[in-house]
């Protein structure tokens, strides 16, 4: 209780440094929160994209579609396969692009018959593609792996950038705490000297500073979450109107986990920062 009182007194007494520290930490954590949520959404979009990935095998004229369909259905990698005749393919194309309707009536249907496959695991697309190409009657194979590869590359680059950002931002937050606690220790040097002389334990002397670091982390976490979560919900609500096909992350459990992670990170930075400062500046040298 005494340590808590001392920590609160130090935060109030040195309020300029405390506000500066909380601001630095809040900014760092808010950027981290934004980046985490962006990464989470990209992963969700990617998972969705991969889940909807279809492999199409185009068949040459005179191919035995039903037999080929039976063959691919027997493959363990294939979750679902169906035969798409060229008339059905043209109808689907016209449905997607209505302006083609009149053109379609002027010429013969140029589309081939095809097999449409959904795989159990999208990562097996290259393997299935090779096997399809080896089948007699298959003249071409198409899959969305190029698009997915591009998306994955972007996601990987963001992950690297995110890691660098995390290190830089957490370091700045950590230094802010270390400096703030150092200032608090300097301000209380006389008290610490008296405490040492009369025989205060190390824990008694250090506790107020560790609690101060913890409290600065706690305040920063509360402000960050107060900004980040409602801010995210607002942005998602607005973007959903413009981009209704994008599957934004809205799962409260997942968002709760992000919030919890940020809070724990903030408290850890507070505690570790104060522990570093305390071990540097409260060491007794004999």
């Amino acid at each position, binding site marked *: 209780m005494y340590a808590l009182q001392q920590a609160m007194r130090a935060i109030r007494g040195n309020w300029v440094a405390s506000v500066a520290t909380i601001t630095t930490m809040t900014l760092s954590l808010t950027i981290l929160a934004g980046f985490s949520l962006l990464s989470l959404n990209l992963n969700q979009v990617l998972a969705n994209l991969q889940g909807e990935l279809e492999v199409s095998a185009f068949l040459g004229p005179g191919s035995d579609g039903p037999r080929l369909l039976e063959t691919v259905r027997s493959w363990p990698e294939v979750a679902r396969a169906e035969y798409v005749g060229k008339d059905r393919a043209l109808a689907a194309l016209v449905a997607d692009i209505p302006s083609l309707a009149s053109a379609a009536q002027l010429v013969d249907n140029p589309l081939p018959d095809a097999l449409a496959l959904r795989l159990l695991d999208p990562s097996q697309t290259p393997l299935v593609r090779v096997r399809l190409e080896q089948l007699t009657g298959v003249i071409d194979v198409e899959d969305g792996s190029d698009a997915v590869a591009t998306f994955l590359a972007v996601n990987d680059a963001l992950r690297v950038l995110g890691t660098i950002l995390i290190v830089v931002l957490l370091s700045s937050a950590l230094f802010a705490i270390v400096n703030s606690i150092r200032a608090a220790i300097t301000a209380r040097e006389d*008290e610490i000297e008296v405490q040492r*002389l009369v*025989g205060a*334990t190390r824990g*008694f002397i250090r506790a107020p500073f560790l609690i101060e670091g913890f409290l600065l982390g706690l305040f920063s976490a509360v402000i960050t979450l107060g900004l980040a979560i409602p801010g995210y919900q607002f942005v998602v609500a607005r973007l959903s109107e413009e981009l209704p096909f994008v599957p934004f992350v809205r799962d409260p459990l997942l968002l709760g986990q992000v919030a919890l992670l940020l809070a724990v990170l903030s408290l850890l930075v507070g505690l570790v920062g104060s522990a570093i400062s305390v071990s540097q500046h409260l060491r007794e040298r*004999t």
Partner: protein
Amino acid sequence: MVEFKHVTKTYARTHTHALKAVDFRIRKGEFVYIVGHSGAGKSTVLSLLLRRINPTEGVVAIAEQDLAKLRDSQLPLLRRRIGMVFQDHRLLPKLSALDNLTFALRATGFHGNQEQRALGALRQVGLAHKRKAYPIELSLGEQQRVAIARALVTNPPLLLCDEPTGNLDPDTSWEILELLNDVNIKGTTVIVATHSRDLVDRLKRRTMVLRGGELVRDDDAGGYSL
């Protein structure tokens, strides 16, 4: 109670030989002056007793315990058995006289009635009526009395005083010395580091003289002679 066995202390950074092979023993209940000019090694003796520093060679022991062998976690227990008074009193300016004492009690984990105990110590130094005064509202002599009360509030068996009268006029110095003598009569071992010839000659007690880090005289009869 206190023993120095062939103690040498060299400050490596400045290559200063603060103490050179010093031997002495102080019995429980003694009143001892350590005298010498500035730089003679008086403060080093006190710092060694508080284990703020370790000797370069030799053994510093209190109650047969070699202080160099104490773990850091044991230092608070050692210091709770030693009261310390400085020339500049080191009172906390934002705390009243009474609060300076309760601050010390709280730091040592005293569980009884802190205010009552602190008031008792202030009474012992004749300043119970000034318990609410802040250090700045007290005279230098009163400030030093409060510092002595703070050193005594935990009932330590050993009291160390580093130039306790250094900032005081002769009359006030004598009052402080009488107070320390009273404390000693009640059973506390008192070690006073000073360079005040008047005090040592006025209240004659065992006197150890340091010169250039060496113990050049240890005289039970007392009196100042360098």
